[in-house]
């Protein structure tokens, strides 16, 4: 599937823990996945499953008291044509080398454009800062490039918007400004953490279309974090499903939607109301949604065995509550962490 593409980021057995007074939260607990150049990888999961912490671990911006305690994140960079592999977990968060990667080679778009943009600097000022810092351009050249970027992301009247403040823009415009900032240094990986969750559907459609276009033009890889399965289906090539800090299933997007193996993935897919489904049935038939019973377990007291077993409809007593399942490859490129698939 991706054999013909070069590897960009390899996440291996990543462990990021939060050391709190109440105990240690294993927010990311042994996550493995690869991102290839130009690929779109979707990361799905419910709140608290560790998807955002994984993204922050890659950028080395895990907030305190969190810390990456194990595993490696191998980043294959090309500096002036020379290939280099560095382990991002081994770098100091404040080091100049990490800073030269963060924002330039790996950029991030956050969920809340209002809280991630500065309220006291103009849009142009903020985009220009990234450009000046990473590309060493002067004020005037940076401004010109910033206008160019705003134009690229479809901002109306970019030469006027550049002097406006975040509060003067609508939600969609702010997110465009964020994307313009993230793309201004041509990153090889864009991490988009719920970039459209706070937006209306018609604005979401605009932003998703924009991101697809920009990916075609600039050829970057995108790691797309969301809980919205609709966005995953429309935007990604490969998908990682996370639950309680672990990857429970990983597959190509088509396989994941049409041949899901993990009970959690299946339950997630069944529990969403799908647009058109009821209309297609003419309102007849089943009225209730299939739901996953119970709730996400307490992160301080993880259940023994498979973390999903208390909510799983296919739980086998004496197996799932005792043995922790390992990731196995059920088909090329399709990995599942479930005892039922191991054949135990």
């Amino acid at each position: 599937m991706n054999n013909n593409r070069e590897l960009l980021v390899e996440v291996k057995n990543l462990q990021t823990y939060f050391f709190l007074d109440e105990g240690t939260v294993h927010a990311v607990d042994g996550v493995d996945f690869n991102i290839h150049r130009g690929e779109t990888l979707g990361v799905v999961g419910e709140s608290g499953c560790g998807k955002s912490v994984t993204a922050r671990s890659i950028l080395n911006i895990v907030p305190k008291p969190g810390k990456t305690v194990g595993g490696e994140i191998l980043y294959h960079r090309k500096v002036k044509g020379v290939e280099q592999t560095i382990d991002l977990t081994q770098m100091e968060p404040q080091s100049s080398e990490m800073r030269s990667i963060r924002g330039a080679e790996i950029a991030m778009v956050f969920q809340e454009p209002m809280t991630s943009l500065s309220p006291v600097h103009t849009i142009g000022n903020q985009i220009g800062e990234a450009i000046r810092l990473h590309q060493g351009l002067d004020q005037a050249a940076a401004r010109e490039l910033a206008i160019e970027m705003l134009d690229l992301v479809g901002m109306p009247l970019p030469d006027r918007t550049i002097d406006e403040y975040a509060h003067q823009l609508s939600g969609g415009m702010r997110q465009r400004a964020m994307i313009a900032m993230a793309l201004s240094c041509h990153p090889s990986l864009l991490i988009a953490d719920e970039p459209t969750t706070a937006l209306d559907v018609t604005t979401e459609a605009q932003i998703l279309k924009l991101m697809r276009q920009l990916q075609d033009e600039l050829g970057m890889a995108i790691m797309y974090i969301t809980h919205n399965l609709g966005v995953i289906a429309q935007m990604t090539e490969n998908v990682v499903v996370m639950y309680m800090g672990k990857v429970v299933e990983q597959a190509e997007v088509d396989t994941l939607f049409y041949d899901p193996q993990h009970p959690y993935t299946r339950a997630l897919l069944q529990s969403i109301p799908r647009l058109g489904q009821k209309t297609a049935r003419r309102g007849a038939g089943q009225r209730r949604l299939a739901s996953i019973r119970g709730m996400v377990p307490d992160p301080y007291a993880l259940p023994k065995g498979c973390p999903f077993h208390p909510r799983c409809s296919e739980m086998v007593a004496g197996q799932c509550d005792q043995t922790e399942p390992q990731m196995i490859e059920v088909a090329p490129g399709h990995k599942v962490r479930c005892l039922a698939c191991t054949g135990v």
Partner: protein
Amino acid sequence: MTEALKNTTPAHAATAIPESRNPILLEVNDLKKHFPVQKGFLVTKVVGHVKAVDGVSFFIREQETLGLVGESGCGKTTTGRLILRAYEPTAGEIWFNDQQMGRVNVPDLDRHQLKLLRQNMQMIFQDPYSSLNPRMTLLQIVGEPLLVNKVAKGGELQDRVAELLRVVGLRPEYMTRYPHAFSGGQRQRIGVARALALNPQLVVCDEPVSALDVSIQAQTLNLLQDLQEQFGLTYLFVSHDLSVVEHISDRVAVMYVGKLVEAATTDALFRHPLHPYTEALLSAVPKPDPRLRTEPIVLQGDVADPANPPSGCYFHPRCQYAIDRCSTEGPELRELEPEHFVSCHRAEELQLMGVLGRVTA
């Protein structure tokens, strides 16, 4: 059928509506809410109005769910709050068939009547974190409406709260705990229990599942449907999520910049929408199926500013079907097909795309 709508109904569309339908519980006529925009310090001056709700008319039948959809700022939440008179309406009528007082116009009620009304009209809020007082126990939160309205106290109150908690799927033993001990989904259940405490007729649900995770969303939607069957509730379900609205609603009303642009049965609205905005909304929803990678209709620009709306039809600057007439003359809401209301000049001639593709007449 409502008075205001009757006036705008073309004669040919006055086809009979099946008689078997439930009687109308709530009828909203030409409802308006204009928030003043003030300027100045010490001496303030009103410099304009945000027309948050600008002439909205619809009705809800007993025991049905009306979905009210639209994008942020379209006035759907304000409409929900006006019905409960959490805001004072600027103009318009809200006729409610109260089980104690009979048919009343909500804006005319005095304080005492309003208190009676609110026993029969309740609300569930979007954010289960900010809508529960962190310093009150579940007994106090769920019991407060019973206490305030002198329905129960003491041991009876406890029994009633225990019963309510059981109904929404929480353990009665949790009664002495505070909201912080509960997850988002459980908190939303507490909010539901509080809304049901007085046995209301109508519950206004303002984005009740938007803040919840996917798996919890399904549980909460199922709970709301079960309770509706069990207690014969009527819901006004305000949401921006079209998949959820399609799932739960019997009929759907679509709002755009303070106005109702389309209202119909869920099936009719999703199968063959008559308003271009509805069509765009439906196409914009990302479909959870990788084999259905459709190209959505991408609307140009942003939602119009309700303080300074465009001339004519508010949607015309973004509408791909707009003609000259649309920029000069605002369309009226009319009943084009039985129970299918639309405000668009070109509704008859356009063949719009529903969720199942284009339906040819």
